[in-house]
């Protein structure tokens, strides 16, 4: 297998909990991401799936260095970039860009879309003004927009088109990796398909690698070569896309799969469903033992004390559970 393009080991990211009346001192850290390993190979798509509060967005921000990580290392093409600053960080950011969830909020409404897309080039000081404009127009064309829309404002575009603009902005630097944070969850179903297909086309044509953050296993099924399922800051299961869908071993993955509404009324009426009770606990005070045990349908007594580790087998499928589903 080829050398990984992006490799993260033991990533831990926390938020401070402060105490004190005048001088706020940090008394603890809430671990939003608690020791996550992740490997992305060139041309591959890795999906990180989980519900709100599982730490997936914090992890994404850590990976692109929008947030500092407390512990762990991030290697990009064999080079440790965990603590890079200044020029080194800037070079990394040209190679690894990001697409955001909300295409409306992530575009400045007072900026023409050409300027929005061109901004990364301006920031990194790439090319002459003429070059930049040409590259912007190429990027717009590549995402299926009319380059003549250069001078329009975001409000003139539909949700799907705005997400295309967001993708053009991520593409214009000609990156190797794009981190997509919930790229389609704010879009209508028929438009979701357009964006998923566009991402696939771009990957094929440009050899891009993606990390896709999503809350919905269905959406990433098309895109992902590998899937990691997160719960409360940890990876609870990982594996090849189809492995996770068809042979889920961790009860949480099982519950996620089972919770999806199925677009077939006959199946929907008859199937056995695992409905999890309660809400995701607060990461300030995570449960003892296995973090999933209070909501787990198959938890045993030992789960309250033993914290299972993620063990990945030779086939690349791994889970962190003492009593996996069969």
């Amino acid at each position, binding site marked *: 297998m080829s050398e990984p393009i992006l490799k993260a080991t033991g990533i831990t990211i926390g938020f401070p909990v402060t105490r004190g009346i005048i001088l706020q001192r940090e008394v603890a850290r809430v671990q939003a991401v608690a020791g996550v390993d992740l490997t992305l190979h060139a041309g591959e798509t890795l999906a990180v799936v989980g519900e709100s509060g599982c730490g997936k967005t914090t992890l994404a921000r850590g990976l692109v260095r929008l947030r500092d990580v407390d512990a762990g290392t991030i290697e990009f093409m064999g080079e440790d970039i965990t603590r890079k600053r200044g020029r080194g960080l800037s070079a990394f950011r040209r190679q690894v860009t990001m697409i955001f969830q909300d295409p409306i909020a992530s575009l400045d409404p007072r900026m023409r879309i050409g300027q929005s897309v061109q901004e990364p080039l301006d920031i990194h000081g790439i090319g002459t003004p003429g070059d930049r404009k040409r590259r912007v127009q190429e990027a717009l064309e590549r995402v299926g927009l009319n380059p003549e829309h250069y001078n329009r404002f975001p409000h003139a575009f539909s949700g799907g088109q705005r997400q295309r603009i967001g993708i053009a902005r991520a593409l214009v630097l000609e990156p190797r990796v794009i981190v997509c944070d919930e790229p389609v969850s704010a879009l209508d179903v028929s438009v*979701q398909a357009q964006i998923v297909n566009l991402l696939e086309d771009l990957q094929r044509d440009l050899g891009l690698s993606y990390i896709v953050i999503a809350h919905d296993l269905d959406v990433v099924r098309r895109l992902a070569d590998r899937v990691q399922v997160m719960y409360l800051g940890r990876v609870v299961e990982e594996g090849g896309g189809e492995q996770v869908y068809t042979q889920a071993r961790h009860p949480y993955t099982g519950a996620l799969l089972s919770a*999806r*509404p199925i677009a077939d009324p006959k199946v929907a009426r008859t199937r056995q469903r695992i409905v999890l009770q309660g809400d995701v606990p607060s990461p300030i005070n995570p449960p003892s033992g296995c973090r999933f045990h209070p909501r787990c349908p198959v938890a045993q007594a030992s789960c309250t004390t033993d914290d299972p580790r993620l063990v990945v087998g030779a086939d690349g499928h791994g889970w962190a559970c003492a009593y996996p589903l069969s």
Partner: protein
Amino acid sequence: MTLLTVDNLRTTFRTDDGPVCAVDGVSLTVGAGKVLGIVGESGSGKSALSLSIMGLLPESATVEGSIRLGEQELVGLSKHDLRALRGSEVAMIFQDPMTCLNPVLTIGWQLVEAVRLHQQVSRREARKLAIDGLAAVGIPSPEDRLRTYPHELSGGMRQRVMIAMALLNRPRLLIADEPTTALDVTTQAQILELMRDLRREVDAAIVLITHDLGVVAEVCDEVAVMYAGRIVERAPVDELFAQPQHPYTWGLLASLPGRSRTGQRLHQIPGAPPSLLSPPPGCRFAPRCALVLDACRTDPAPSLAPVGAGGSQVACLLDQSTRDREGARYAAGEESA
């Protein structure tokens, strides 16, 4: 027994750019104890339809046609009479439970208000009803919850509170506008299960508005598919998934990510829905339809007509054999891009 009858409803908004007809000649019925799903994407007019039924439209909107609840006509009813119906006979649940509860008032205050707006009961009795209501939607220790503020509850809990509030006065009609869209998958499953349970108990007619065919399959009896302000297909839920009739429905089914198989490209509907300021003449889906005929672009838009024995209705000019063939293909998930 038919509870809600909407007949040729037209809802028009005055805007600076001209009138926008968000709901254009919609007719539908819902029986007591039944769930009607209204499926459509943003801009299809499904929310304008629900707000028309609730009488919650802004002043810039005009409603024509007829909305009957039982025997009572709602269009043209005085504001005062409409208000008396809202929250008692007709109740509504909204999409985002994060923003739908007043952040500065306690849950208890908001629930007690809902009771006392329509029932002549003491504060104490209203409180008791509120506690029972919270318990019925599966909220643990409901009495303590009354004192909390919305921001202290999770999204799923808030949506439960919204549902409890809507059911407090035992409405005959419940409108749920994307009730699970803003929630996580596992929370969505909890809320859908709750709705299935409640359906059996409350015996109200439910109109469920959603963009998600999966949600429709899970809880609805009947489905109406809306596109650009019109209903393009109506069918019992099993019929819709077994024998979809309208090309737009096919597109929606095929773009569901869960239905595609590995190695297969996701089906996409090209283009975007039309602007309602200047909708295309003829069938509004024609510009995006793969099987479009010349007549689709020029003839007046087709109206809903019954097809087959299953009780489906469709507004489409394609001939029946084409629709049967294509529909069966899409229903089986055999479509290719």
